[in-house]
């Protein structure tokens, strides 16, 4: 078997996708399909006192209207962080309660989508209204210390050394507060479900990052055995954490289909997704960072207020990453959660790290200016081999190499340090900024089954989902290498509960949990082939060996788990739960790393910010599929540009909800916003975290892009942006 870097292969499902042959969840149209549409709440909070359905029922083609009065047999969803399956514990339409504006209050099912939408607009709802608190900064939004927030996995504040004393005594210090608006994922594929019953058996087609949770969560809510449910999700049109658990429409679509005896499709429109799904919470972060006169960080004090909902504690893990950016002499964190009358926020791509990096990396930049030090040098000086929180060594931490190589690729040496010192021929102010990012190196259990046939086909089932990140291509590349076959001969069955148990694909652990299982399955298959005793020549393919043995096919199973885990972790994924672990393993700590270098141009009169050039150098362990990895990295930089300069949920506190709830008004970058993006990989396998040497990539790629941009804006203009997104008015 070959070793070393993997070859670049094309995306294995590219042709299917560009020809429209990839069938996504709600592309399925079983015979007799009926269509659902939601009526939504127009108040910020309260209780439904009456519903007049008469006009809606009179619309031709309406077959069923589901309200809280019909759903008593359904169990409420349980929050994933309370060992449940849903993005929140609150279940719209299962209760007369209204928790936030825009939530569904009824599901109308009709012969056509048009009739369903029309009828939903005719449902008249009477409410008893209550006061509400719709945003992080709203009056009455009171922080709760996270240590007091009851959850299944409590998170403590971090204290390493006496950070307060070290900060007080320090020669050089910065004290700054950073804020961020809510952000909303907006995957191109809308959230939706097709539910079809055949007798007692339910088949669900849904774009989900977690087919296992859909299966087991739905079984719990419907009160039926999980084995009666199949969930099929071979492709996802973007998930970004918003499709990581069950959503409101799933149980209601299944319920309506059972009531009607017909398959039901519910696709949640964009505007409703803004109002009834998870999002990146708004945050307030205060960082106090001190250094000695040589630039060595003596202490960091990190405080965060993070938005959550009234019904769930969505825990803040911001401080855990903040503590790992550098080898601070001492570190202290204070995390508080701020309940608001909103859906429960959740794990939007780099859920904590994006915000944390904005605060930490901006403060580091400010401190570098205080010290008169180069921003790359101060980062190199404060790198560490040891995790200050656990005292354990890092299994691999190539951030200094990322900084050095990135700086060279970018041409950092051309930068003059003074703000406003670089001006383009047309008068634009040029700014150059740097920031690092890191993301937990998680791992987890996974099962694999693999089947080789005499005609050369390899079929592998893994507990992971293809959501555009390229896992199907990575699997093909890895299996091809390990079995000495062509990548085209490998078919991966993913996101399908008819295969092995499906674990949530999130947290950048998709590859790190499934690829080791794929390798183990290949190894087990090799051993089983050897046991056929064919004396096949070295390097013979499975098909050649099967031919020699006169066998049509051979199947084997395998299972792997992360360091420190045992077979109990498999029990979790076998029942639709999550069982990730890391970044702190028994003997080491693992993170992925990024160093981003950004050039901005700021027009002096209108203050328009443009980003013509980004260089990103990444340490994600072994790169399994160079082409899709590069695409991931570019997409993360684009996302970071949006996160820094474009995206914000706008809340009118008189009404609650999100005012700019469509992608015309909620701004994401367009092609014209994106210039040159160059990415590079260290491509050194992590020696400890798993047998494949692979760490996560999909999230770390965007961590640090935003502060690299705002640091560049400071270099260009002398204005320090401490709120995201940065817009024209912030620089005027």
């Amino acid at each position: 078997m070959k070793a070393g870097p993997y070859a670049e292969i094309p995306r294995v499902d590219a042709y299917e996708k560009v020809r429209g042959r990839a069938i996504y969840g709600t592309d399925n149209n079983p015979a007799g399909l009926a269509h659902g549409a939601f009526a939504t709440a127009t108040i910020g909070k309260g209780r439904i006192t009456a519903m007049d359905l008469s006009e809606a029922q009179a619309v031709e083609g309406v077959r069923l209207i589901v309200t809280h009065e019909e759903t008593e047999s359904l169990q409420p969803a349980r929050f994933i962080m309370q060992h449940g399956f849903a993005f929140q514990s609150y279940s719209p339409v299962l209760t007369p309660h209204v928790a936030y504006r825009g939530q569904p209050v009824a599901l109308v099912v009709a012969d056509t989508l048009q009739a369903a939408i029309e009828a939903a607009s005719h449902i008249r709802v009477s409410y008893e209204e209550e006061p509400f608190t719709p945003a992080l900064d709203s009056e009455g939004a009171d922080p709760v210390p996270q240590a007091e927030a009851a959850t299944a996995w409590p998170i403590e504040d971090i204290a390493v050394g006496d950070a307060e004393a070290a900060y007080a005594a320090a020669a050089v210090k910065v004290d700054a507060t950073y804020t961020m608006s809510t952000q909303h994922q907006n995957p191109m594929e809308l959230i939706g479900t097709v539910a079809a019953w055949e007798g007692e058996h339910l088949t669900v087609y849904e774009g989900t990052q977690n087919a296992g949770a859909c299966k087991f969560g739905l079984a719990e809510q419907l009160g039926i055995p999980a084995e009666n449910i199949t969930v099929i999700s071979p492709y996802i049109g973007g998930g970004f954490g918003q499709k990581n658990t069950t959503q409101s429409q799933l149980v209601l679509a299944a319920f309506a289909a059972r009531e009607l005896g017909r398959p039901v499709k519910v696709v949640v429109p964009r505007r409703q997704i803004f109002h009834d799904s998870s999002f990146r919470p708004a945050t307030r972060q205060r960082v106090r960072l001190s250094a000695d006169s040589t630039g060595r960080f003596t202490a960091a004090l990190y405080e965060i207020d993070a938005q959550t909902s009234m019904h769930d504690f969505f825990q803040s893990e911001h401080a855990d990453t903040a503590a790992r950016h550098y080898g601070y002499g001492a570190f202290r964190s204070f995390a508080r959660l701020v309940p608001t009358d909103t859906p429960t926020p959740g794990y939007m791509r780099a859920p904590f790290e994006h915000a944390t990096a904005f605060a930490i990396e901006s403060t580091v930049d400010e401190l570098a200016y205080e010290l008169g030090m180069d921003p790359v040098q101060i980062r190199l000086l404060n790198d560490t081999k040891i995790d200050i929180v656990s005292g354990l060594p890092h299994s691999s931490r190539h951030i200094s190499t990322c900084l050095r190589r990135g700086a060279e690729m970018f041409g950092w040496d051309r930068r003059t340090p003074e703000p406003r010192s670089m001006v383009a021929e047309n008068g634009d102010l040029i700014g150059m900024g740097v920031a690092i990012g890191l993301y937990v190196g998680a791992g987890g259990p996974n099962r694999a089954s693999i089947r080789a046939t005499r005609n050369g086909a390899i079929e592998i089932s893994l507990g992971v989902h293809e959501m555009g990140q390229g896992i199907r291509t990575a699997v093909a590349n890895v299996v091809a290498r390990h079995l000495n076959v062509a990548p085209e001969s490998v078919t991966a069955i993913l996101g399908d509960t008819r295969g092995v148990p499906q674990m949530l694909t999130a947290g950048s652990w998709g590859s790190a949990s499934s690829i080791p299982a794929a390798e183990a399955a290949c190894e087990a298959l090799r051993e089983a082939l050897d046991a056929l005793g064919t004396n096949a020549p070295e390097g013979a393919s499975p098909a050649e060996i099967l031919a020699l043995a006169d066998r049509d096919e051979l199947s084997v199973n395998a299972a792997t788990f992360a360091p420190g885990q045992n077979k109990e972790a498999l029990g979790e994924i076998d029942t639709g739960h999550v069982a990730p672990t890391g970044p702190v393993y028994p003997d080491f700590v693992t993170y992925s790393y990024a160093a981003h270098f950004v050039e901005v141009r700021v027009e002096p009169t209108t203050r328009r910010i443009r980003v013509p050039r980004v260089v990103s150098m990444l340490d994600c362990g072994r790169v399994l599929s160079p082409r899709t990895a590069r695409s991931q990295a570019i997409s993360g930089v684009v996302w970071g540009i949006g996160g820094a300069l474009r995206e914000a949920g706008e809340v009118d506190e008189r009404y609650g909800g999100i005012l700019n709830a469509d992608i015309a008004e909620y701004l994401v970058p367009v092609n014209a916003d994106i210039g040159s993006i160059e990415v590079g990989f260290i491509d050194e396998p992590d020696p400890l975290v798993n047998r494949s040497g692979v760490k996560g990539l999909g999230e770390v790629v965007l961590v640090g892009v935003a502060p690299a941009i705002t640091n560049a804006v400071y270099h260009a203009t002398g204005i320090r942006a401490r709120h995201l997104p940065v817009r024209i008015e912030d620089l005027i």
Partner: protein
Amino acid sequence: MQPISYARPASLASAIATLAEAGPGTRVLAGGTTLYDLMKLDVERPERIVDINGLEELAAIDTSGDELIFGALARMSDVSADARLTSAFPALSEALWKAASQQLRNMASLGGNLLQRTRCAYFRHGEPFACNKRTPGSGCAAIEGLNRGHALFGGSDACIATYPGDFAVALVAFDAQIDIAGPDGERSIPFAELHRQPGDDPSNDTTLLPGEIIVRIRVPADPVGRASTYHKIRDRESFAFAVVSAAAAIRLEAGVVTDARLALGGVATVPWRAREAEQSLISKALTPETARAAGELAFADAVTRQHNAFKVELGANVVRDALLIASGRA
């Protein structure tokens, strides 16, 4: 389901006759890029649609004579690419191609584009928001709300919704006329009289009478158009409405300004001509200082709200830059 009757007349006369018979729930369909959008949002619930796409006589573009003549059904993309326009009136061409996306410009008609309704979120998104434009008498949620995108000029206590278009802003700078057909025949009005400020009746965006449609737009082929630009500042580089825009044109003789045109977009309830600022430039050299002073004058009477006050400073600079770009073409 709400039934909609649909007619597709084959001639202008037939269209006018059809519209004359139709009631108040009638809407004219051209490119559909605004009407369908608002129907999906439930802001427009027409009972009757008169599709005028069969009226070929309204699709003509003629830029060869003393007047530039654009049929109301000419598509934005075709007009923006017209060779005479790009050389003799770059502001008009730029105002078109800096709007929307190529796909939308391929569909949208000029007449429909002029009649595009406001992007005010409180108008577009229905219950529970108060909006006098959508539901007369319900109030205006924007005045005390999130009004970053709302008007600094031409607002009233009833409405501060911004007119969102670009092409209209450029047209108003060039003294365009529009020809209107209705049950009483054709009439012509200065383009500046097409849109109306909200006053105490924000529900009515224009001075068009029931049953009337725009048939063509005429722009005097004035040489002032050559040194012109449409400078559009937005929150991203493409596919966004103006935060502030300025249509500017300059005529210079012997180093001083003899004619200046200036209109503002993204900041007013109607396409906004800044005549005082224009006058301030006459007989002066156009310099960064005089251009900036004109910009300050253009925004001198701005009525700002909680979230849009930055547009006074930004706007002065957008005007400055627009005038300098325009004069660079003189």
